[in-house]
């Protein structure tokens, strides 16, 4: 199921999920399917109107067995935690790995921008991160997903026919033709397998 891992791909230290219009439903399903012992940190970025507290936390609370929160600047990525990109900031991965924030200009008319998050993760984590891009009506995220793939990380794209809005997945498929194109239920399994990949060798070694 993980399929076509490049030779450099390795168990991810972070799984990044990006989306826009129509993404909350998919993200809810993916997060809801994660077991309580899922260790790999998950970072979720969905374009939303700027407001505090974000609508995303409200929509996802109660649907996920893992700790759910918006990261602070410089906060280290911790296991068994789902991080939600706060509204009106860019969210980046920095050395550590830890989170960094910026209020630089919007990218692809978006702040937070999926490209900014994915490109920073590719730069810092290289093959040790995985990216998923789901439903959305604009092309943000395609270049970032491509950067993760070029850095050796695993990437998946929601099947545009299965997505509420196909434009974002289609833009990503055009830019990274080798990425897995998966239906929603397959994305749930794919993410779970990425987490299992991390935990199984560790159990053996401790």
């Amino acid at each position, binding site marked *: 199921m993980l399929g076509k891992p490049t030779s450099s791909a390795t168990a991810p230290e972070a799984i990044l999920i990006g989306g826009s219009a129509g993404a909350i439903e998919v993200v809810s399903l993916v997060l809801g399917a994660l077991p309580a012992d899922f260790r790999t940190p998950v970072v979720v970025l969905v374009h939303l109107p700027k407001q*505090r507290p974000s609508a995303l936390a409200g929509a996802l609370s109660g649907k996920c067995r893992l700790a759910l929160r*918006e*990261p*602070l*600047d*410089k*906060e280290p990525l911790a296991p068994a935690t789902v991080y939600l990109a*706060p509204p009106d*900031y*860019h969210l*980046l*991965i*920095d*050395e550590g790995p830890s989170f*960094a*924030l*910026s*209020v*630089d*200009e919007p990218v692809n008319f978006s702040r937070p921008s999926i490209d*900014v998050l994915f*490109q*920073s993760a*590719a*730069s*810092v984590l290289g093959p040790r991160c995985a990216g998923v891009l789901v439903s959305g009506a604009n092309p943000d995220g395609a270049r970032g997903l491509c*950067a993760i793939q*070029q*850095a050796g990380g695993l990437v998946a794209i929601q099947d545009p026919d299965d997505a509420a809005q196909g434009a974002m997945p289609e833009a990503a498929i055009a830019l990274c033709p080798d990425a897995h194109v998966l239906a929603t239920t397959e994305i749930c399994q794919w993410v779970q397998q990425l987490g299992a990949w991390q935990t199984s060798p560790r159990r053996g070694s401790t």
Partner: protein
Amino acid sequence: MLSGEFDIELPLLLEAIHLKYSYDFRRYALSSLKRRLEQAMEHFNCRSLSALQERVLREPEVMRGMLAHLTVQVSEMFRDAGFYRALREKVVPYLRTYPSLKVWIPGCATGEEVYSLAILLREEGLLDRTLIYATDINPEALHKAEAGIYELDRIADFSKAYAEAGGRASLSDYYTAGYNAAVFDKSLREGVLFSDHSLATDSVFAEVQLITCRNVLIYFDRVLQDRAVALFRDSLCRKGFLGLGAKESLTFSSYAAEFAEFVREERIYQRR
């Protein structure tokens, strides 16, 4: 995404800028810095950071342009209504007890936060006895801050934020609208000193009762953040206040123990 040579050239460029112009970006957070340098390469039509370094070293006007890429964040007036409401309701009662007030806004950029705070202090009857130090390393940004002129198409958002932040009047009471710009009332800045100051290289210059430094520390790494927070500690009077951005925290700072959380959810701290 660029890598390899870029990662080698990056510290060399920062070192060159520091040696030649004394601007110290060596402890800026890498993730944002990389993006900004990529944009600068594109802007100056340079194929590598080495090529950019060549121009920065030999053409001072390129360095001036670089400063815009490396520093200026476009800010908004009254960003985060809850922060300004907390200042008004919880911090101002303490500020009233001082016969005269000093406030420091480090990294003030183009001044949106300076005017927000000046308006709040005016409405609370405190502006006449307040001296505000508005500092930044970018002279062009400081000039814009001092002019207090903002594009008219940004004013609708500012007005909305002002109302949400508990503004007592109408924002239009504080500016004159021109053809496509709003010029803020110069009486708001009579007690404002706009000045060059670097959190990376300069030291304490005054004792103040309030510092607001919002979404500036996010551009620094942990070491430089610590340097800045130590400056804040040494500048604040005992029981003085420090306001940070919504996602900034002293949790990861070496000086966390020297501040108490005053309004936790709005990141307002009090010097112990």
